[in-house]
């Protein structure tokens, strides 16, 4: 029951917000739903909810991603309050659909994390695309429209391929002997050892390509820089911090079935290939990137690659990947929110035109430095720990050269990011630009995220570690 409410309350909240014309009340509804959602998601750790038939249930991995989504959403909702209020003065903005679409977006992402039936999960992921498209087109600019179109078309095509993979899996399962099991994860995992191998393999490949498109794995990532950079800051934060994880969950569900069949070697190889390709391509495009929001978007591609590599390596690296999912979401959300602050004051996303952020926006500047160091993999922040775990796992295993390649690519990405951000942060700026007073919420929210990332870098609390461990075991890894 609680699971159904988790999905329905945001959905109904969206309808309510659509009906209400006042932006302030809409924002209130948004905040209320976000708080309720987080409370329920956290509460379910202590009081588990029974599954809803065979369609909805919360397993560890799903619950982990649900909690991440919920936390990011609440932070974004808080940030959005001054943001939207400021935007109502902008003639190019269209705020009336903002809150409803955000809430429907949350409902769809929640459904992805709680669904056990693969076709329901597919419908939910498609719903996230449809709910988030209007959000990207918040500012009615031609470039935003272009980004929205690419996002819609490329992601829909990718997700259609994932549906094909879902059907292939069903066909593979029907070859398992005693009739065909429903497309529910448990039943599929049970039938997996007897599935017809060719169909199973093609199913995983289709799902990897399809959901990988939505996740931002190269070479299907072409929509991501456009969409994440053109969208308004809170939406970018959600897209990078929450949605990409949910798409990854789609891939992971298929991976779970393949694991149960015992033939997971090819799947791991594919994950490694796509993962490294993503990290490499992103690193290359991050060097000399002219637009700082696109820079962060490519960083998302890179980090999704890291997640794929972590799961592909298996063992302790899977634990590292799960930890990295948490770290990346918190960190990237902070980065995009801070980028929103910079954009509001400087009015441009071109990095070359921005200078002296540390002087003009001191709080944002400091936080931006912190978040950049964090996402780049510097200690003592969270991403350093998770990337270290993955690197160590590669070195200790038989794939030493993979570990070295991993570090090298991450270093290139870090340097590329530094090359773009440091000139922005430093410098005098123009003489007439005084320090600007920043709305409290737009600074407090990234601050909380950065603090969390710092804490995770110093030590991982035991309950979290256990959760990450069980999630890793579910995905064929283990041992942190």
């Amino acid at each position, binding site marked *: 029951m609680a699971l159904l409410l988790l999905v329905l309350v945001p959905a109904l909240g969206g309808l309510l917000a659509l009906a209400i014309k006042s932006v302030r009340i809409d924002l209130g509804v948004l905040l209320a739903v976000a708080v309720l959602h987080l409370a329920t998601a956290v509460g379910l750790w202590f009081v588990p909810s029974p599954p809803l038939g065979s369609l909805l249930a919360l397993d560890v991995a799903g619950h982990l991603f649900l909690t991440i989504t919920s936390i990011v959403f609440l932070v974004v909702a808080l940030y959005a309050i001054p943001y939207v209020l400021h935007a109502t003065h902008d003639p190019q903005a269209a705020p009336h659909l903002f809150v409803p679409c955000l809430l429907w977006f949350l409902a769809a992402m929640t459904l992805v994390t709680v669904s056990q039936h693969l076709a329901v999960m597919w419908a939910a992921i498609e719903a996230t695309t449809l709910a988030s498209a209007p959000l990207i087109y918040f500012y009615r600019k031609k470039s935003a429209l272009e980004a929205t179109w690419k996002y819609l078309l490329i992601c829909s095509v990718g997700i*259609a391929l994932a549906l094909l993979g879902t059907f292939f899996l069903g066909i593979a399962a029907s070859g398992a002997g005693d009739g065909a099991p429903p497309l529910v994860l448990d039943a599929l995992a049970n039938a997996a050892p007897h599935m017809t191998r060719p169909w199973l393999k093609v199913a995983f490949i289709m799902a990897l390509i399809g959901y990988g498109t939505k996740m931002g794995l190269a070479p299907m990532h072409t929509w991501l820089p456009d969409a994440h*950079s053109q969208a308004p800051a809170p939406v970018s934060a959600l897209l990078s911090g929450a949605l990409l994880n949910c798409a990854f969950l789609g891939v992971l569900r298929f991976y779970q079935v393949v694991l149960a069949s015992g033939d997971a070697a090819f799947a791991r190889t594919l994950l490694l290939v796509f993962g490294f390709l993503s990290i490499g391509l992103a690193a290359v495009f991050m060097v000399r990137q002219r637009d700082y929001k696109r820079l962060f978007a490519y960083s998302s591609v890179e980090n999704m690659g890291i997640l794929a590599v972590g799961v592909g390596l298996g063992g302790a690296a899977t634990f590292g990947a799960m930890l990295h999912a948490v770290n990346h979401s918190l960190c990237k959300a902070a980065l995009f929110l801070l980028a929103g602050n910079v954009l509001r004051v400087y009015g441009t996303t071109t990095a070359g035109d921005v200078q002296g952020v540390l002087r003009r926006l001191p709080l944002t500047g400091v936080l931006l430095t912190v978040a950049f160091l964090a996402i780049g993999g510097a200690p003592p922040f969270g991403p350093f720990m998770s990337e270290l775990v993955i690197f160590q796992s590669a070195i200790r295993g038989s794939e030493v050269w993979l570990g070295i390649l991993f570090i090298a690519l991450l270093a290139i990405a870090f340097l590329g990011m530094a090359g773009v951000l440091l000139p922005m942060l430093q410098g005098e700026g123009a003489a007439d630009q005084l320090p600007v007073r920043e709305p409290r919420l737009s600074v407090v929210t990234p601050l909380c995220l950065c603090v969390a990332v710092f804490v995770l870098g110093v030590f991982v609390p035991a309950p979290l570690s256990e959760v990450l461990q069980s999630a890793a075991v579910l995905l064929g890894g283990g041992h942190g």
Partner: protein
Amino acid sequence: MTADHADVVLLVLVMIDLFVVATSRIAAAIRASALQGFSLALLPFALASDGTPEHLAHAALIAAGVLLLKAVLIPWLLLRALRKVQIRREVEPFVSLHVSLLLGALLIGVAFWASAQLPAPRAGTPALLVPVALATLLIGFFIIVSRKKAITQVVGYLLMENGIFVFGMSLAREMPFVVELGILLDVLVGIFVFGIVIHHISEAFDHMDTHTLSELRD
């Protein structure tokens, strides 16, 4: 109805695919996809081969859903969008229409070859199901990639979905009706959103050539 009748329907689907890939009239392409939806609605009956009342009822429900959505509502939405934008024809696409037809034929060949590599899905599936589904998918993808006008790309997306749906038909027994309906609805809403975005594109840019949407790049 038997599995052999299904083969007739599947061949009709392929012929419609070839028509869509070779035509330059967008309204004709949309109507052809409506005809495909209509043919798709006949498939559940052909595939409900063991004829128990509950399977037939299930088939009838799916057929009604497919008919309503793919043959009526979605083409109506697209034709409405087309009217608002007021274009009639696709300009010469990246690949000329003659070559498109030949490439479409090649893709059908590839689909037949690929389905020969995979073992048969399950007993009782018509032999043409996998090749035709793959062929429709590939041709739909080809249309998305090779056409310039946004509405034609959406028709290509529809073809892809039709091909995937044919696959889903062979699994009709395992899926609760609710889920299939959910999939159909998703596609419907998707087309709706596509239509709105196309409208915005034509208003902002005075045309619908998506290949000129190339401002964002590195």
